[in-house]
């Protein structure tokens, strides 16, 4: 089995069919775990990392987690494939840059979970779902955690909980995040208020690709910062019942305000996006994300019916550099890549030549 299948299949989380997927693209829950009796990754020897890797692989690949699990060693993995895994949110950018034979990732072929081995912690187990499905994602990640833990002892202390390399993860080791599409809050300039409010209640706001990345395409990741002193259920429930519904309500209000007060400007943005995406011969990746964002808003508000949400969700991903090159079958740089991107988008939007 190779990564080929992952390129052509869009993962479950991108179907755009999950609850509240008009605003929430995906939900993610990840657990950070370390094996007992080993130093953390950054302070371990090569031999120790190899031993950690072997122990984890035996337990992850023994058939109990899923029918088909793909194991990828990141050093043997071609660079474009590593990049593809980053674009799919299956590994971090940090993990992709690794030059260490003992780094790997396990991914189930339906892309519902990924397990990074020897990233910052020995294990980073993540489950990804479309729309708001935090309870479901936690249920799955918890089950995976229990299966791995049947054979492997975790570093755990009564006081600090699951011990992690960075103290910002210690305790539950759990990071809950949702990927939000907030074009109306951006257009109305309200987004900074949301950012500030989120920070005040100890939530992190990031762009499309996590830490340090910008919110291209009006896509924002919001996640909990607190992992110690609050239970998994408390953290999840606050997210699912308070944080996410409030942000969705803000975005909906902003969308209604745009419709009522600036409908011509709104339609202009939407139809310009459509015009450029269906006609342009060269497109840059950031430009595409902005245009797709406006188009997605138009579809969600029923202003344009010539394209469906799933196609747009897929294009957010397929227009990224590694995906483009995998679809194309060869490396593409600069102008050639921009040309290939424009062509792919015209084809997918049913406007080829």
């Amino acid at each position: 089995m190779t990564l080929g299948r992952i390129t052509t299949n869009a993962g479950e989380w991108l179907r755009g069919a999950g609850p509240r997927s008009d605003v929430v693209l995906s939900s993610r829950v990840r657990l950070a775990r370390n094996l007992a009796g080993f130093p953390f990754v950054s302070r371990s020897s090569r031999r120790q990392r190899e031993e950690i890797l072997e122990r984890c692989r035996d337990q992850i690949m023994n058939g109990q987690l899923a029918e088909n699990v793909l194991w990828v060693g990141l050093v043997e993995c071609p660079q474009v494939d590593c990049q593809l895994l980053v674009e799919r949110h299956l590994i971090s950018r940090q993990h992709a840059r690794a030059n260490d034979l003992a780094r790997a990732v396990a991914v189930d072929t339906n892309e519902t979970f990924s397990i990074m081995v020897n990233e910052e912690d020995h294990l980073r187990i993540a489950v990804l779902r479309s729309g708001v499905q935090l309870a479901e994602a936690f249920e799955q990640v918890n089950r995976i955690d229990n299966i791995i833990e049947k054979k492997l002892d975790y570093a755990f202390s009564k006081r600090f909980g699951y011990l992690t390399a960075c103290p910002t993860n210690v305790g539950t080791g759990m990071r809950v995040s949702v990927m939000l599409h907030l074009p109306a809050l951006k257009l109305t300039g309200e987004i900074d208020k949301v950012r500030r409010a989120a920070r005040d209640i100890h939530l992190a706001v990031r762009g499309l690709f996590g830490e340090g990345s910008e919110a291209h395409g009006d896509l924002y990741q919001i996640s909990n910062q607190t992992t110690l002193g609050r239970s998994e259920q408390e953290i999840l429930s606050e997210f699912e019942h308070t944080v996410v519904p409030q942000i969705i309500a803000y975005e909906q209000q902003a969308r209604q305000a745009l419709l009522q007060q600036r409908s011509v400007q709104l339609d202009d943005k939407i139809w310009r996006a459509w015009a450029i995406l269906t006609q342009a011969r060269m497109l840059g990746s950031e430009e595409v994300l902005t245009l797709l964002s406006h188009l997605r808003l138009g579809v969600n508000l029923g202003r344009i019916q010539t394209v469906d949400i799933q196609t747009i969700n897929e294009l957010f991903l397929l227009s990224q550099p590694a995906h483009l090159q995998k679809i194309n079958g060869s490396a593409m740089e600069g102008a050639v890549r921009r040309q290939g991107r424009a062509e792919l988008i015209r084809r997918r939007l049913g406007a080829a030549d």
Partner: protein
Amino acid sequence: MVLVWGPQAVKKICDKCNHPATVHEVEIVKGQKIEKHLCDDHAREEGIAVGADYKPINELLTNFVKMHSGSAPAHDLVCDNCGMGFSEFRENSLLGCPQCYIAFEAPLSPLLERAQDNGTHHIGKVPQRCGIGERRQEQLLRMRNRLAEAVKSEDFELAARLRDDISQFEGVVE
């Protein structure tokens, strides 16, 4: 509105209860000075952001380092298992091994409390099999540390013996 924090403040008790006042505010309304002294809870009630100047731990650590720059500690606190120094942790905010949590407990606790929204103790999931006890975890960690050192110094006889010890130790059910 003028906010006065910390030692400059005079009044020590909250206006609304007997808890220590942590937020001190002086407001001038129509030329008249109104002082407010509130505890965290009542300040929050009044809509005054408490602890809203939350910063990620990296930033806290950088500030901490800055605060101490120029006066590098003569003896850095060091984890006796993995050899990581506290100053090294401050630089990259990654700990070396589980034992570091114990070795650095004193300077780490206040940082952790701020980064974790006053969380100090774990609440939540516990490994199903209850894992192995903390003492055994520590023993195992130290044995593996000695093994790594033996391998590094090419003392293969000692390494082989330690490897046997470790598998025997791991095989023993507590």
